[in-house]
C-alpha cells in the first residue's frame, strides 16, 4: 500500500514537473526559438571525481544528462541538436578509458533503437558525424545501422560528433572540394560540356561585365547574389535557387552587340576591369564547394553553442559552423546541466537575436 502511494506521489510530481516545464517553454516560445543548439559535453570525469564515483559512472551520468537535455530541447521546439561525444584528440586518453567509451556508445546506440526510446518518441533522425573510419568495426556498424534505421525520421535531428575534430572535417572538405574541381576540369577537357566558353565583355566603363557561364559546369558552384552585380543583365534568382535561369545572353548576342575583350573558360582568367568581381564570385564558389563537402552539411549552422564546466574554448569543435554563433559556458559540469541552463542560454539568444540576424544578412 505504501509502495503504491509512493509510486503515485512520484508520478504526480513527475507530471507536475512536466507541466511546469511546458509552461516555461510556452513563455519562451513567445520569442525566437533556436533551430539548432550544439553542446560540448565537458565535465563527466570531474563530476565522477567530485562525487567519489568511478570514472565510467561519470560518463553514464553524462548520458542521462544528454537524454534529459534532448527532451528539453525537442519539447522547446529546437529541431537540430549536435553534441560533441568523442573527439579524435580523445584517442590520446588511456586505452582502457577509450575502450570503455566505445563500449558505452555501442550499448547506448542499441538502447536508443529500442521501441520505447526517445528516438521513436520524438521521431529523431540520427547522424554520426566524424571520421568514422577511425572507429572499430562493431562500433561503426552499430552507428551505420542506427543512421539507416532512423533515416525516415524527419521531425527532429540528433547529430553525434564521434571521432570528430573540426580541422579534420575541414581537411576532408578541402580534399572533397579539390576532387570536385579536378573532375570538373577533366570533364571540360573531355568536352562533355557543349558550350565550354565564357566571354567577358566590357564595352564601356559604366556597364558591368556580362557573364555567360556554362550551365552545367557552373550551376552547382555559383551563388547569384554574390557573383553578379545588380547591373548585370541577368535574369535569375538572387539567392541562386533558380540557377538555370542565370544565363540569358547567347554568345551570338554578345558578339553582335559588344566588343569582345577576352574569351575564357569557366575556370580561366577574367578581364582586368571585372577581375575583382570575378574573384569575389570565385571565392563564394569555393566557399560553397567546401561547405558542401563538410560532414555537417546535413544541418544548418548552430544558433547557440553551449559548453559546460565553465571552460571557454572551442576544443576543435564546429570551428567553421560557429563562426558567428554565440558561445555560452555555464559553470555546471555536464552531468549537472539542467533546465535552467538551457532557459538561460535561450533567453540570451533571444536578447541578441535581432542584432545577430542583422549581422548575418550583412555578411
Amino acid at each position: 500500500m505504501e509502495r503504491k502511494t509512493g509510486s503515485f506521489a512520484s508520478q504526480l510530481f513527475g507530471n507536475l514537473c512536466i507541466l511546469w516545464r511546458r509552461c516555461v517553454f510556452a513563455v519562451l516560445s513567445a520569442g525566437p526559438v533556436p533551430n539548432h543548439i550544439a553542446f560540448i559535453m565537458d565535465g563527466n570525469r570531474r563530476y565522477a571525481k567530485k562525487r567519489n564515483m568511478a570514472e565510467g559512472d561519470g560518463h553514464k551520468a553524462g548520458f542521462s544528462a544528454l537524454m534529459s537535455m534532448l527532451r528539453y530541447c525537442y519539447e522547446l521546439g529546437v529541431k537540430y541538436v549536435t553534441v560533441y561525444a568523442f573527439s579524435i584528440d580523445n584517442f590520446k586518453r588511456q586505452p582502457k578509458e577509450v575502450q570503455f567509451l566505445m563500449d558505452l556508445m555501442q550499448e547506448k546506440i542499441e538502447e536508443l533503437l529500442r521501441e520505447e526510446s526517445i528516438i521513436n518518441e520524438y521521431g529523431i533522425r540520427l547522424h554520426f558525424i566524424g571520421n568514422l573510419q577511425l572507429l572499430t568495426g562493431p562500433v561503426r556498424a552499430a552507428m551505420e545501422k542506427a543512421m539507416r534505421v532512423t533515416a525516415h525520421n524527419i521531425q527532429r535531428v540528433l547529430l553525434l560528433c564521434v571521432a570528430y575534430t573540426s580541422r579534420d572535417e575541414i581537411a576532408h572538405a578541402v580534399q572533397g572540394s579539390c576532387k570536385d574541381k579536378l573532375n570538373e576540369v577533366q570533364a571540360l577537357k573531355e568536352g562533355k560540356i557543349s558550350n565550354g566558353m565564357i566571354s567577358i565583355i566590357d564595352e564601356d566603363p559604366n556597364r558591368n561585365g556580362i557573364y555567360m557561364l556554362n550551365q552545367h559546369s557552373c550551376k552547382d558552384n555559383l551563388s547569384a547574389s554574390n557573383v553578379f552585380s545588380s547591373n548585370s543583365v541577368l535574369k535569375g534568382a538572387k539567392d541562386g535557387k533558380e540557377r538555370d535561369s542565370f544565363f540569358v545572353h547567347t554568345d551570338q548576342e554578345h558578339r553582335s552587340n559588344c566588343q569582345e575583350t577576352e574569351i575564357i573558360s569557366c575556370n580561366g582568367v577574367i578581364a582586368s576591369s571585372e577581375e575583382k568581381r570575378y574573384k569575389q564570385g570565385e571565392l563564394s564558389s569555393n566557399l560553397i564547394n567546401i561547405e558542401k563537402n563538410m560532414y555537417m552539411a546535413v544541418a544548418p549552422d548552430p544558433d547557440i553553442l553551449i559548453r559546460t564546466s565553465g571552460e571557454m574554448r572551442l576544443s576543435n569543435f564546429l570551428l567553421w559552423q560557429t563562426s558567428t554563433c554565440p558561445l555560452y559556458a555555464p559553470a555546471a559540469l555536464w552531468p549537472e546541466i539542467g533546465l535552467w541552463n538551457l532557459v538561460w542560454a535561450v533567453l540570451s539568444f533571444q536578447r541578441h537575436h535581432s542584432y545577430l540576424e542583422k549581422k548575418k544578412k550583412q555578411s
Partner: protein
Amino acid sequence: MFLHRLPTPVENTLPPNISKAPLTYARSQKHPLFRRQFLPSFHGPRTVLLPSPNVAVVSGSSWRQPEPFPPELRPDLMPKHVAVIMDGNGRWAKMRGSPPWVGHEAGVESLKRLIHLCCSWGIKVLTVFAFSYDNWKRPKVELDFLLRLFERTIDTEIEAFASEGIRISVIGDTSKLPNSLQKMIHNAEERTKQNSTLQLIIAISYSGKYDVVQACKAIAGKIKDGVVEIEDINERLIEQELETNCTKFPNPDLMIRTSGELRVSNFLLWQLAYAELVFDPKLWPDFGKDQFLEALASFQQRQRRFGARH
C-alpha cells in the same frame, strides 16, 4: 617608445570609470558568479558613460620604459600568441555622442598600449582583427576614414616599430585596399621583417573562412602542378597554406574579444581550435593594462588538456 609620435596630451575632463565590470563567462568555476547555476547572469550593454583612466593619453616618457612584469603572473605560463578582436569603437563613440571615427582613433591608442605591454611582457605574437572582410559593407564615409586611419597609423608608427624590434605582418585580402595602402603595407613588412621582439599581425579585410578558401585554392594549384596528390591533403598541409604561415606560432593561445560579444565572428577560424577565449565587457578603447592583466591571469588559471587526460 612612442614619445615623438603621440599627440599633445589632452586633459581628461571626464571623471574616471569606477565600475569594475567582471569578465563574462570567462572565469573559472571558482568565480562566485558561476556557482549560481540556476539563476541567469545577464550582461547588458554597458550604460556607464564614463571613460576609464586608460583612455587618457599617457605621458611620453612612460612609453620608453618597458612595463615591469606583474608579480601576479608566471613568466613560464605566458601565452606565446595573443589574438584580439578589437570590438566596441563605434559604441564607445556613440556613448559619448561622437561620430564613429572618434572611437576608431581612441581604438588606435588602445592598440598602442597593448603592443607596448606585449613587448614588455615577452609575448611573441600579437594578432589583431583590425578590419573584417564583412566590414566592407559599412558606410563609405566610415570605410574611407578607416583606410586613411590605417595609412596614417602605419606612416606615423613605422619608425617606432622598426626601432622597437616589432615585425609587421598583414593578413587578409589586401587586393581590395587602395593601392597606396597596399604599397605602404608592403614597405612596412619589408622594413621590419628582420625584427623579432614582437610580431604584430594585423588582420585587414580578413575572414577565417576566406583564409581556408585561399589555402584550398593554393593546394588545388599544387595538385594541378603535380607537387601534391589529393590523398596528401591533411591538416598540416592546410596549416602551411593559411595566411598565418608568416609566423612561427600561428595558433593563438589566448583570444580576447572586447565589448562583451560572445562570439568569434569569423576570425582565425582554424587557428583558434585550442585557444582559451576571454570575453571582456569593456569596449575596446577602454581596454587597458588592468583588463589585459585580468585576461592573462584567467588564462594562466586554466587547465589546457587538448582532449587528453589531466
